[in-house]
């Protein structure tokens, strides 16, 4: 109808004139080094943040409202993750342990002792297995239904493991380490299927199952690879050293953040920088899109998480679209 078209045009015009208002989530007292979203559940989606203060927090994903703090680690928490249903959480810490938590009650369910600092954790799709990696250079797979059993170990990396992810329907594992390699492993044989070498240490890795895309960052580069084959898709160079990047679920844009404290938004097809946002008071360590793509969250050295709108000005979560008064009076 003419009314609908007119209102869309006006809404888009007023949105183009709007300035992004990031939502700041406070509570942590030290740098936020990792964050992860759950899938979309009947209760919305959730966000977990890993912090050097040792107290990972669970928040409501679309508002940033604090839900609870997982208490128990005795050292900096380097990695945190949620399962799809947001019923379980896992954390990796400097106290040489990985912990599994009930994400509804906040109770600690399991402590998995390691021989060195644990840096990353990742659940399989069915939440039955947990992958861990850390400074002892070994990947471990724990069967959560048999926690006392020895984990399956995968060795090969020659330096500390920074990030490890399940991929290809949990049949393969992707790991990034300080040895400047990314390795693709077969979960059953424990053998390395492929190895990628870089000039610099990989700072972050994100796996997009839908489309099998791997997003990695190193130096000032954001690189996209095919997850199965580790064949390169494209690379983009940012104005500053990038610590983390995330691809939008619709694969039309990606966001990145790093040393210059800013968040950058790029068009994935054209590789053009669309926007950059200031807000954090320290380097950005991690950034992730929400599962519905409506917002992205960033964690920083400044101890805060910030939520940013994908479509600036849209009514969503705590953001409210306010149309020009005249239009509202006449047509609302």
């Amino acid at each position, binding site marked *: 109808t003419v009314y609908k078209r007119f209102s869309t045009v006006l809404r888009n015009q007023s949105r183009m*004139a*709007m*300035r*992004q*208002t990031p*939502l*700041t*989530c*406070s*509570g942590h007292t030290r740098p936020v080094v990792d964050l992860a979203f759950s899938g979309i559940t009947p*209760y919305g989606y959730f966000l977990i943040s890993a912090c050097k203060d040792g107290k990972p*927090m*669970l*928040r409501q994903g679309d*508002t*940033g*409202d*604090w*839900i*609870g*703090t*997982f*208490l*128990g680690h005795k050292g900096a928490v380097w990695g945190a993750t949620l399962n799809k249903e947001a*019923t379980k959480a896992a954390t990796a810490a400097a106290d040489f342990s990985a912990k599994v938590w009930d994400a*509804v*009650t*906040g109770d600690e369910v399991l402590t998995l002792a390691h021989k060195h600092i644990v840096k990353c954790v990742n659940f399989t799709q069915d939440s039955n297995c947990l992958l861990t990696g850390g400074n002892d250079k070994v990947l471990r797979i724990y069967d959560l239904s048999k926690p006392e059993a020895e984990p399956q170990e995968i060795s090969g990396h020659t330096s500390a493991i920074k990030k490890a992810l399940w991929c290809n329907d949990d049949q393969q594992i992707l790991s990034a380490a300080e040895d400047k390699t990314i390795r693709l492993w077969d979960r059953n044989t424990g053998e390395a299927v492929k190895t990628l070498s870089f000039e610099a240490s990989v700072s972050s890795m994100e796996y997009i199952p839908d489309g099998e895309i791997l997003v990695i960052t190193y130096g000032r580069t954001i690189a996209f690879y095919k997850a199965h084959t580790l064949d390169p898709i494209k690379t983009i160079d940012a104005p500053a050293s990038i610590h983390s990047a995330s691809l939008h679920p619709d694969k039309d844009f990606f966001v990145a953040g790093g040393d210059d404290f800013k968040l950058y938004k790029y068009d994935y097809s054209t590789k053009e920088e669309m926007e950059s946002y200031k807000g954090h008071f320290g380097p950005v360590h991690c950034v992730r899109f929400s599962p519905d793509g409506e917002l992205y969250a960033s964690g920083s050295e400044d101890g805060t998480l910030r*939520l940013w*709108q994908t479509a*600036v*000005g849209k009514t969503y979560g*705590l*953001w*409210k*679209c*306010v149309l020009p008064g005249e239009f509202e009076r006449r047509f609302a």
Partner: protein
Amino acid sequence: MKTPVSVLRLPRGPEPNSRGFDPNSPRYIALCPTTIPASQGNKADSVNLEEEQQLRSELRECFLRSLIAMTDKQVQFNLYEKVQVQAKFGASDIDVLNFQVSDLQTPLGVQKEALLRCQDMISYSFHL
């Protein structure tokens, strides 16, 4: 000059004295696996459920009364790393996260007032 997007309110921050995970939230009520096996059954188990609830209430009351009985008494705490300390128990906080104690005897000397983290304790004992 662009107008900043309006915001209904700021995200809520952590509560100072609680670890959160509100047991009254819809998600908690719906998903929290009750520790009462009987409540997962059918109507025939409702009798068992009531009995179990009763026993649990009694245990909880017992625990709370034990905390009251402990007030101002000398308590021996067994902590991790084979550490044992003794102190005069003052009070617990509402979530039983911390115990307020006085004259805490430690290998480094006596601490007049201290907070002991409950997560650090394995067990504690005192004479009634």
